[in-house]
């Protein structure tokens, strides 16, 4: 008899209330909810949401298309999604490590650009052999990004300049300096972008044959996955991670505990910048081969949302960055198959991010319903006795 009352609330608590499963169940619930919300948008536009979502998955190589061009398959689509996923993963990890230290790295885009540009100029146009050039690109990306991050950290530690303000300013400075150099020295007269880097320096191998397939191969992805585990270990199991989290959680207590707060701030921004730099080289010398002047990569800003969606936890970020990349990558194909504008696809990404941000609210709701139901049951039991 009992379960007839409040069936919705009961189901809600049952599905999402499990203490152990909650950390996975709630994000999935959020995603389902957002897909439903986006479906309504699509229905309003007179499109079939199922077809649209299939297009989304097909575009990112997660669901087979009806037909493929020669030397293409679901695998090549998937790998080219991974190509895009790589810089996003680096960028979100960059945001996460700063977050743990209580810092907000909004300057990932700038760090990406600085690293991408430096590596392009120093190595991209050289004719070093690939085995030397590619590692050098990684190293230069790390160093350039780290230097920008360190500068932001230093400004905070030394002059107490808020990192958000300095990052935004530095973003502008880098963007205009890079534009100046590209227009003056490195511009490609046709594309109005920087000249494409050589294949020797590019971090995504082009035209690789696997069987009869012809695919790209992002070599940075391996490093990105390694970074996920290294960061996880760093944050949870090392002295440095302990100190970083202490500084992020309570600066005064960290100081009292003898932790050099200033140096930890600089160091966490430096690591964050280095990861941003890796995002930059895998983006500008991997996914793309050139730099578009006067713009910052949106990815640097999207990565903030991705990091939050993954709860600043490296493994969580692995999945959240996968999800967001798959959607944004698949959206191009979706817009062509279903005939909706690219903007609608971005809208859906936005809706997912918005709903994911609600997970705390949903957790609260579950707890509230649980209490309500328990009380209702109790009242019922007492009523039964009387």
């Amino acid at each position, binding site marked *: 008899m009992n379960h007839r009352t409040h069936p919705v609330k009961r189901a809600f608590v049952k599905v999402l209330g499990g203490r152990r499963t909650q950390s996975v169940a709630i994000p999935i619930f959020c995603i389902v909810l957002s897909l439903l919300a986006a479906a309504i948008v699509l229905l309003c536009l007179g499109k079939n949401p199922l077809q649209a979502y299939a297009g989304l998955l097909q575009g990112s190589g997660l669901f087979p298309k009806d037909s493929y061009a020669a030397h293409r398959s679901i695998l090549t689509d998937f790998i080219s999604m991974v190509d895009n996923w790589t810089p996003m993963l680096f960028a979100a990890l960059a945001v996460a490590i700063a977050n743990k230290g209580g810092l907000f790295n909004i300057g990932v885009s700038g760090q990406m650009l600085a690293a991408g540009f430096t590596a392009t100029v120093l190595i991209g146009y050289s004719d070093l052999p690939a085995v030397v050039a590619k590692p050098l690109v990684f190293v230069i990306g790390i160093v350039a990004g780290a230097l920008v991050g360190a500068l932001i950290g230093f400004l905070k530690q030394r002059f107490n300049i808020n990192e958000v303000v300095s990052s935004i300013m530095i973003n502008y400075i880098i963007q205009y300096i890079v534009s100046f150099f590209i227009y003056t020295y490195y511009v490609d007269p046709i594309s109005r972008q920087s000249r494409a880097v050589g294949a020797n320096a590019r971090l995504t191998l082009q035209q690789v044959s696997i069987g009869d397939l012809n695919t790209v191969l992002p070599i940075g992805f391996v490093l990105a996955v390694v970074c996920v585990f290294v960061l996880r270990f760093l944050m949870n*199991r090392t002295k440095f*991670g302990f100190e970083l989290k202490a500084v992020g959680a*309570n600066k005064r*207590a*960290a*100081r*009292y*505990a*003898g*932790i050099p707060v200033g140096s930890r701030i600089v160091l966490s921004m430096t690591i964050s910048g280095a990861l941003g730099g890796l995002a930059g080289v895998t983006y500008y010398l991997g996914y793309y081969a050139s730099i578009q002047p006067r713009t910052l990569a949106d990815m640097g800003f999207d990565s903030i949302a991705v990091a939050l969606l993954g709860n600043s936890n490296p493994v969580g970020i692995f999945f959240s960055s996968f999800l967001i990349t798959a959607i944004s990558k698949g959206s191009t194909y979706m817009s062509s198959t279903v005939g909706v504008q690219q903007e609608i696809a971005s809208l859906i990404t936005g809706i997912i991010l918005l709903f994911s941000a609600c997970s705390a609210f949903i957790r609260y709701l579950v707890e509230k319903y649980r209490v309500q139901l328990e009380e209702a049951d109790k009242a019922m039991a007492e009523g039964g006795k009387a």
Partner: protein
Amino acid sequence: MEQEDYIIEMRHITKRFGAVVANDDVSISVRKGEIYALLGENGAGKSTLMSMLFGMYEPDEGEIYIRGQKVRIHSPNQATKLNIGMVHQHFKLVQNYTITENIVLGIEPIRRKFGLFPCVDLKGANEKIRALSKAYGLEVEPTEKIEDVSVSIQQRVEILKMLYRNAEILIFDEPTAVLTPQEIEFLLEILRSLRDGGKTIILITHKLEEIKKVADRCAILCRGKLVDVLDVATTSTKKMANLMVGRDVSFVVDKKPPKFGDVVLDVKDLCVENRDHFDVVKHVSFQVHAGEIFAVAGVAGNGQGELADAIAGLTPQKAGKITVNGTDLTNLGVRARTKAGVSYIPEDRQAVGLILDFSLGENLALKSYGDPPFCEHGVLKPDAFVEHAKGLISDYDIRGQKPEGPVRPMSGGNQQKIIVAREIDLESPLMIFVQPTRGLDIGAIENIHKRMIAERDKGKAVLLISLELDEIMNCADTIGVMYNGEMTKIAAADTLTANEVGEFMMGVKAQ
């Protein structure tokens, strides 16, 4: 039975947090217009019981009646509607808001500009609060920011916040733990006058003499259960203490005569300034020997806190020299000073002494996490944290959390015990104890005092800074009095009476 005029009745209340039973079938009834005290050890469930009356939690079992009506108090707003107000153990104020803004927060008076645009009428509110504070003798300057005022003013703000919301039932959770003796007297006076004005007051405190002074009745909680409700007038403090702790508590600790060793802490001509470059410690010199408890007495805000911070390295010194066992501390950072032999119980446990979101085990190792066995080659050993924590938890009777759980939900007194346990465990030659027993129950206080004296007997130098004259007179071998940033008197404890110390503290007497 129910004919009597009870304004609050809590019947058969049970509240669990996971495996912890914070309240176990507790029933209390409070009459209108009385001061009802709640007494109990740390973690006995006092704050939890009152949080339920204030709608922060809901009971798992049991019922609440207010003015004879059965009610469900599901939120603090609901409690406010029932004219219930609460001053929490750890204040809940917005630091960078003004006093007025804090008081009106959530029920801002609205004025329509040009009869159209709604905006908050701060001017009107300022006036109203000024009038309110006059009426109750709780003087504050409504336009000051919270971060700029002392704790006792912050407490007044919390009280005014309740009165502004027309509270009739006022709950005070350990209001005197943060106050100086003079401020306590003043607060008790306020409590009496509030009661005489018809308000009903529930007072949580660990200080028996306060209960004796103002309360009408007193309920005693022990490990979540109600033990007894007593008429204060006819019960001795000894009996209360006995009921609460379950054994006899001695208020005066036994102490062997001290055996002084070499000088451990040597402070010479120390000057410290605060953030506004105002001298707060002025040319202070003193020495603490091994095997000595040197107690610094003084009214709050006379430079004792800064003195401790300067020795621990949290505040830079402007001039002078501090040495510990011959090591000059002047240019050392906090970590180096800890290694050189300084342990420090800071005044503010939540803001400085603990990282509330870290686990109990991590907090107990907050100063030694980087050394073996907690850490080898930069890699932490989680098991070592747990093992270490288990030992200290049983030694210091820390209740309410597993080693892996966060310290945030722990009761105030148990949080304090974490810090005390950690700092004594460092085995440093110099131990700086600032208000080490703040918020502890009398059993725990006795325990801490015993340990402090045991450390002294082991040859440690103890610098005790306390606002409680009783604590100082009980424990000190040497007493230094600070007044207005200067050490105005240093003398062996047995050559001074409490009265004399009090006079030095007030600056009435000078050397």
